[in-house]
């Protein structure tokens, strides 16, 4: 048996198919992964993402530390509550993890990192923080719930209107902002589905009541299966599949998250990225769209003119398109067409720039 979130019992009661996910017993689906996917695209779904790791960083020199630790630049965060998506790199420019960092105040930032990378992330952060006198607090007292979909915000507002004064501040949140409250609740207008909605970080004891209140508003549970197809359609990378310590952000369609300016900012991995950029990046991460029937899968070979040009890093059926899609790491000079080897048969794919779906609509 793996680790369980505070919502485990709620999942079992909702007839979830429970699977191991990075050492956690998590819901894969509650009957139909496809229906859950469609629900999030068309109305609203609720996800337990409490397996993700919340880390609070505080201290006099925390901003200086994060400018060094992260490839994106926290100086882009001017307003309290604003979030930034970034990679944390090793000395070779490889991606240790991708994460979201929230600016709370000049002495306090919050990061949300992946579940499967928890131990190595914390070890790395602690090692790098040694000379900065940073207080690192992993918040395993907190759960995390994502409510996503075109109706997600109004449903959450209805729940919050019964919970003190939270609704007013939350309803005013812009995209990629978080509101933090004194009772350890923090609500952010972020997500991993390509839809509008919130990610709610809250004390473990409040998780099931909040979940139940959302379900009572008509928001249906969605599992990790739907979360994966939603993020793939939305063009969002999955750590461990689409990038890892052997690939740089420039080879992972994450060059936009690297803050090159100001040039004097020294962040871990910078030298390698600069060298790679000036030499020319040899591989890139692209989208693939299969126009005939079939399903693209992780690790299938991508071919151009009969020669191997790369490999699929995430492949699946895209319920919103009714076709198979994938991300693939390929030669930087790939054209608009390629082939994929599915069980010895070569099928035609179109090379596209993700996202595939945005706000419920196909964009490829």
């Amino acid at each position, binding site marked *: 048996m793996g680790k369980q979130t505070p919502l485990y019992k709620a999942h079992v009661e909702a007839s979830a*198919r429970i699977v191991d996910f990075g050492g956690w017993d998590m819901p*894969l*689906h509650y009957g*139909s*992964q*496809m229906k859950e996917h469609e629900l999030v695209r068309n109305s609203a779904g609720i996800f337990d993402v409490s397996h993700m790791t919340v880390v609070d960083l505080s201290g006099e020199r925390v901003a200086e530390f994060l400018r060094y630790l992260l490839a994106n630049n926290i100086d882009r965060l001017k307003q309290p509550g604003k979030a930034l998506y970034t990679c944390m790199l090793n000395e070779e420019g490889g991606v240790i993890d991708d994460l979201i960092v929230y600016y709370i105040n000049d002495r306090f930032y919050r990061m949300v990192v992946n579940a499967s990378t928890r131990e190595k992330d914390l070890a790395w952060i602690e090692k790098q923080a040694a000379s900065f006198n940073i207080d690192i607090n992993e918040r395993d007292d907190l759960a995390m719930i994502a409510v996503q979909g075109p109706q997600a915000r109004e449903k959450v507002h209805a729940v919050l209107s019964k919970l003190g004064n939270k609704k007013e501040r939350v309803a005013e949140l812009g995209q990629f902002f978080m509101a933090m409250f004194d009772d350890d609740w923090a609500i952010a207008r972020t997500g991993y589905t390509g839809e509008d909605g919130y990610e709610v970080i809250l004390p473990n004891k409040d998780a099931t009541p909040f979940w139940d209140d959302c379900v009572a508003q008509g928001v249906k549970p969605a599992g990790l*299966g739907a979360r994966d*197809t939603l993020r793939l359609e939305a063009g969002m990378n999955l750590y461990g599949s689409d990038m890892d310590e052997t690939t740089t952000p420039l080879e992972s369609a994450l060059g936009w998250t690297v803050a090159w300016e100001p040039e004097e900012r020294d962040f871990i991995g910078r030298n390698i990225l600069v060298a790679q950029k000036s030499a020319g990046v040899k591989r890139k991460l692209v989208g693939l769209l299969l126009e005939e*029937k*079939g*399903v693209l*899968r992780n690790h299938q070979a991508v071919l151009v003119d009969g020669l191997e040009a790369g490999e699929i890093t995430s492949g*699946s*059926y895209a*319920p919103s398109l009714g076709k*198979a899609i994938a991300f693939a790491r390929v030669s930087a000079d790939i054209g608009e067409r390629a082939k994929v080897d599915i*069980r010895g048969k070569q099928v035609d794919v179109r090379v596209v720039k993700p996202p595939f779906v945005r706000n419920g609509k196909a964009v490829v």
Partner: protein
Amino acid sequence: MSNVPSELRFTKSHEWIRLEDDGSVTIGITDHAQDLLGDLVFVETPEVGATYATGDDCAVVESVKAASDVYSPLSGEVTQTNEELADAPEVINTDPYGKGWIFKMTLADEGELDGLLDATAYGEQIAAE
């Protein structure tokens, strides 16, 4: 609990087999198998006229989650495949023993039928999984 119809035969690898009046067999995957796979999105059926030995992989069923081989439960020649699956693979989820059949074959050796599991034996196998 999965549905295991008593009039069918089964394999350990979750295919079902129905013996038809003309001596041919109809083959599909069980309710338990479709439940494990989840929502089906693609089925690669065998070619009509192809011959298979028992245990050969002859078809592929793909859910959103994964691809899974279908193994020929008997030796013989494929006489017909379910063309509806091309546009509606989800009928395997909703009606695995009816509209969700995958292919039909004529048998090389009817004696092989004796090697299949009956509903009781298959029910015990999936209960033990």
